[in-house]
């Protein structure tokens, strides 16, 4: 690093130049590091996969299944997370600031109702909703309102509705209960948290700092540059959560035999709890979970399936890891208990009534 030499130019100007240079060389150094790391990883991967595949042949059985299952969660969710980030960038950077909010009603209850229908316009499954909700909060949506969006959107979503309809049809009532349950629970949660006195305490310090800094960050660069920065920032924030969540989901799948769940079968209450636990563990996207649970239809009571279809999109292992980027552990625990209670009551009620 060269020190600024005294010269005819004014001192602050030189300072600026120097710090600019320092930043540049720092960036070059970072870039070099990234290139080196990527080169190293590529070399290692290439050697093991192509030249010496026998070196990893020792990983068999449960260990291999753990990797297979975790990888499949990552590969399946990754594009949805990217899509969510892109939509969130669209809303944050490219739409006029008040585009969404101008159209929202002023009364909080109605506002949340409209927000819970926002998912209709954005057919993103729940993993994409987390970056989306973060973007909405940065835009100025309250914590309670963004929760309503977060929990309603994966259910009140055209793709989810179509797949559920294909799986269960209209007549069984499962689709209707799913939509109604998702709408009611999301609005209830939003209402509860809108009454919180210090909503910022629900958020992690990290995300809250991002919220605050965003208030006085007015497009220092072009929109394209801003979009790229935002993409990287959001991807960096979401990825560890996604990978850890996928690892946990894989681990639980390998560790907990599923027939334990299935044997709980046909009790009005136990079947509900068992399928909620299953939803929590398997962490599949709301857009396809109907097909997954369809095959359980013979073994389980309809209320249990409704509980699965309502609880799963809102809370599961992968979602909790993703949500942890934004909300404190305490908040997430409360949310999990609240939503689980609501879903259990709903499922139990459906079982008793029909």
């Amino acid at each position, binding site marked *: 690093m060269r020190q600024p030499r005294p010269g005819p130019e004014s001192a602050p100007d030189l300072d600026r130049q120097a710090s600019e240079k320092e930043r540049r060389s720092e960036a070059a150094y970072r870039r070099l590091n990234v290139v080196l790391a990527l080169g190293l990883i590529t070399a290692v991967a290439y050697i093991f996969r192509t030249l010496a595949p026998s070196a990893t042949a020792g990983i068999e059985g*449960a260990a291999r299944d753990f990797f297979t299952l975790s990888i499949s969660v990552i590969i399946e969710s990754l594009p949805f997370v990217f899509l969510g980030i892109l939509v969130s960038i669209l809303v944050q950077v490219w739409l006029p600031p008040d585009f969404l909010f101008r159209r929202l009603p002023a009364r909080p209850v109605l506002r949340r109702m409209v927000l819970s229908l926002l998912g209709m316009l954005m057919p993103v499954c729940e993993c994409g909703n987390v970056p989306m909700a973060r973007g909405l909060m940065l835009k100025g949506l309250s914590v309670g309102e963004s929760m309503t969006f977060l929990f309603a959107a994966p259910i009140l979503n055209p793709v989810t509705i179509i797949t559920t309809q294909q799986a269960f049809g209209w007549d069984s009532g499962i689709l209707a209960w799913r939509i109604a349950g998702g709408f009611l629970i999301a609005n209830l949660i939003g209402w509860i948290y809108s009454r919180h006195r210090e909503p910022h305490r629900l958020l992690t310090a990290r995300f809250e700092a991002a919220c605050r800094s965003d208030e006085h960050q007015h497009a220092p660069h072009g929109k394209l540059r801003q979009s790229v920065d935002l993409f990287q920032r959001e991807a960096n924030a979401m990825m560890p959560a996604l990978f850890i969540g996928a690892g946990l989901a894989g681990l639980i799948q390998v560790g907990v035999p599923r027939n334990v769940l299935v044997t709980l079968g046909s009790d009005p209450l136990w079947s509900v709890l068992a399928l909620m636990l299953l939803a929590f563990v398997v962490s*599949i996207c709301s857009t396809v979970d109907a097909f997954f649970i369809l095959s359980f239809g013979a073994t389980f009571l309809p209320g249990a399936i409704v509980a699965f279809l309502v609880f799963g999109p809102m809370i599961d292992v992968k979602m909790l890891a993703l949500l942890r980027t934004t909300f404190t552990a305490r908040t997430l625990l409360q949310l999990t208990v609240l939503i689980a209670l609501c879903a259990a009551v709903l499922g139990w009620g459906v079982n008793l009534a029909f």
Partner: protein
Amino acid sequence: MLSLIGIAATLWLAVTGKLELYIHPRYVPFTVTMALIAAAVSVAGFLMTREHSEHPDEHADPDTHTDPDVPKPGRLRAAGSLLTVIAAVLGLLVLPPSALTAEAANQRDLNVSGTLGRHQTNDLLTEEPSGFNVRDWASLLRYSPGEAYFAGKTATVTGFITAERKDPANVFYVTRFVVSCCTVDAQPVGVPVHQPGWQENYKPGSWVTATGSFGLNPNQDSTNPILMTATQITSTTEPERPYIH
């Protein structure tokens, strides 16, 4: 870094045609498109990197931690993310892509949630059975249309071997996983095959093609009243597409 690993793994799998080991084929175009977009944006971001002054979450980190829930010191966090990166590289890039093993099939209930529904199975009755796969036969056996249907029919099925739980000495299943979205929801389906002493020739988990007709199970209290009495079993290798979608 993690998203780069994810993108690289996705594209690598796509190029080698192995993406279907992890996700349903209907997601392949979407997944590849998003990975390409993300790759383009990442490259753009990499080339644009200059100042990092407006990255609040990198600088505002250590001292603004007023949240009592996140007492993580920087070093622990760094170690954690390094571990995650290593595990991701190992799992996504170093280990060869693989399908679920027979061990996973033992963990899940066979022929419970992987089979076709009752209506779809009924539709099969009018079809020509020569092209039926493991799931079709397993569904037919589950919602049995009666012995008469199976009389005189021959089936050829390919899958891996799992032992029957109650009668492992005489019966095994020719098993496949059914994947409806991604490998996480894989459900095993299997056609029971009656062959006393099969364990002498075949190991659980090995792939076979079985051709045979159906008959009554000599063991009356078994879960499978009707099963395949295989006339011919040949060893084979895992097919390119190990799952039924």
